[in-house]
Each structure stands twice: as structure tokens, then as C-alpha cells.
């Protein structure tokens, strides 16, 4: 017979947070932002290495496991979006979209990709994203603001061709998320 046990654990964290001597939520969040500001230059500088690592990881023959590429791309996105490197964040999010929907299609849970992931078109789309990330990171290659905007718009369009317009979420991923009102 199968046994299922259900109980209500008391989290020690709840008691710890309620101890005297704490700080307000607004103060805690402000301190976190200060600390993030202090590491922003270092983190953004590290994006070059991350993009290079992504390029090295990517094998055009499609032999690189997708989850490895996803991990690299999401790390680039997380850093760029947090520190307001918007165009790089959008490009990385677009790549995340592409990889994510390939996963969904594999799992049978999402829209069918118009090409199998071993398809040269799909691999080309990934390669284009990686190249775009490199260009956007180097201003001399990424061009002016209009040029950068065109690069990102082109990437989003590439992804839409694969996953359909209703499923491309790069824009939504990069939309600024509101903080809870009580913190502000």
C-alpha cells in the first residue's frame, strides 16, 4: 500500500526574520542595489568572456547539448538585463527563446518548430545570435544606436520565423518588471 505523509513544517527562517535588530524592506533592497552597483562594471566586463565561451561551446554541427547553450545564454541575459545593457539582454533573450522553444517542441509541450534542431537553418539562427552578441558587445562593430536596434530587431524576427509571432518572448523577458509597491 502506498503511504503519503502530509504535515506543516515550521520554517526556522520565519523566526529568524522576526528577531529584533533587523532592517526594513526598503532599506534592505536599497543596500542590495548599492552592492550590485559596486560589482556592475566587473560583471559587465565579464560578458566578453561569457560570449566567447558561448561561441566556443557552440558547435555548428549541432552536437552541443542544448541545455549547455541555454545555461550560457541565460547567464548572459541575466547579467545584461540586471545591469541595463538592454540590447545585449534582448539579443540573449532572443537566443533563450530559440533554445527554449526547441526544448518545448522536444517535450511535445510547445509549438512545433518549423525545422528540426539539426536543421542548418536552426543552427544558422543560433550562430547569427552568437555573432550578434559579439557585435553588440563591441561598439566599433555594433554600429550606432540605430544599427544596434536593427541587429536586435533582426534577431527577434529570426526567432519569430521559427516559433511563431505569438510565442517570441524576448521583448516580454526584457520588459522592466515593477517592484512591489511597498518597497518603493
Amino acid at each position, binding site marked *: 500500500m*502506498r503511504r*503519503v*505523509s*502530509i504535515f*506543516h*513544517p515550521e*520554517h*526556522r*527562517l520565519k523566526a*529568524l*526574520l522576526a*528577531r*529584533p*535588530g*533587523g*532592517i*526594513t*524592506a526598503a532599506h*534592505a*533592497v*536599497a*543596500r*542590495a*542595489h548599492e*552592492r*550590485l552597483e*559596486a*560589482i556592475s562594471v*566587473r*560583471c559587465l566586463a565579464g560578458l566578453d568572456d561569457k560570449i566567447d565561451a558561448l561561441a566556443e561551446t557552440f558547435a555548428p554541427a549541432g552536437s552541443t547539448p542544448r*541545455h*549547455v547553450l*541555454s*545555461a550560457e545564454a*541565460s*547567464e548572459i*541575459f541575466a*547579467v545584461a*538585463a*540586471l545591469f541595463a545593457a538592454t540590447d545585449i*539582454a534582448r539579443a540573449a*533573450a532572443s537566443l*533563450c527563446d530559440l533554445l*527554449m*522553444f526547441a*526544448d*518545448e517542441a522536444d*517535450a511535445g*509541450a*510547445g509549438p512545433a518548430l518549423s525545422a528540426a534542431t539539426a536543421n542548418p537553418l536552426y543552427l544558422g539562427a543560433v550562430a547569427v545570435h552568437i555573432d550578434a552578441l559579439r557585435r553588440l558587445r563591441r561598439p566599433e562593430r555594433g554600429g550606432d544606436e540605430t544599427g544596434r536596434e536593427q541587429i536586435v530587431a533582426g534577431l527577434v524576427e529570426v526567432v519569430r520565423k521559427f516559433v511563431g509571432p505569438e510565442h517570441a*518572448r524576448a521583448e*516580454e*523577458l526584457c520588459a522592466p*518588471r*515593477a*517592484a*512591489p*509597491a*511597498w*518597497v518603493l
Partner: protein
Amino acid sequence: MRRLVDGDAKFETAGETFNFETANVLLLEQGAPGLDILVQIFAGFGTRNCYKSVTVEAAEGLARRCPLDLVVVDPALHGEDGLAFVRWLRRSGGEPNRTIPVIAVSANGARSAVSAARDAGVSHYLLKPIVPAVLFSRVVRVARETRAFVVAQSYVGPDRRFKSEGPPLGCGPRRASDLRGPAAKAPAPNLSQGEIDMMLKPQRANL
């Protein structure tokens, strides 16, 4: 895609303070700078004891040695599945670590990824980029959560059916389908357990 809306985390009361100093927080991320970011955020909250790990094996070692209060895990580690650690923690992590809140942080908002994390036993799933205010509100929420903990053959973790309880206490409605007003009074008294049992008890029909 989860979007934070006004009214989220309204459980907060003005002037309330939170003491993170002695909380033991385990951070399992794929490496710098993700780990750096989490460490700085928790340091800003006042946490002194942040245990950093980039591999599942190291995280398991830490969880065996230290009583933890919170785990923040990125499911997408380099060459590893961060959720493997969550499954291990829930099944073999020992007390009290087995039941502690676990927050997954990921840039992957695909339904399959969120479902996988939920089924591994995470308490909440946060999309990157990590915004300090959002992380703070989630940490406070999971600390105060009264969700049941389920231990079954196929699943160990917080009750996954908490959706049926509606929005968390103090939060406004977040979906169009959420009830907006107070529920009406019941037209009749609740059934007793005996009456419920009678309704569910199979009866032999005499024909």
C-alpha cells in the same frame, strides 16, 4: 510568463523589520557572475552566512554539514541539473534541511522548465534577471508560508496544489478568474465528517 503586478507582496506592513543576519543561505549557481549577484543581494539584505556552491556535489556536502534556512538554486548549471540537488535535498537531505524553502532562479520561463522545477520540490520559481525587491518579497513569503509538505513515493516537497487556496493572504486578485469580492455566506451548515464519509462510502445496491 510571470509578471509582477501591483498588490503583489502586500503582506508587508509599514515599518516592519526583517533580520537576515543569522540565516544560513545556500546559493547554487553556475558560477560568477550569477553567484556574485546573489551574494551581493543577500549581503544587502543583511545575511552573513551565504554558502556558495557551483556543483551539486558541493551543495550536497554543505547541506550535510550545516543546518540551512533557505536554498536558492539555478536549475541550469554547467553540465549538471540543479534540480537534482533539490530532489536529493527533499528525499535525503535529513532534518531540518529537507523541508526548508527552495527558490529556483532561472531565465527559462518555459512551461516545461517551471513544471520540472515544481515537480522536483521547489517552493517558488523566479525569473531572471533577479530584482532585489522581488527576491526579497519571495523570501519573506516562503518563510511565512503555511503550505503543507508532502512525502509520497513519487514526490517529496511542498504541496503543489496551493493554487486552489487562491492568492496569498493579503494579496489582491492577480488573475481575471480570481474571485474579487468576499465569498457569500454558506446557505447551509457544513457537512459533518460522518455525512461526508457516507457520501463517499460505496454502498451495495439491493435490486
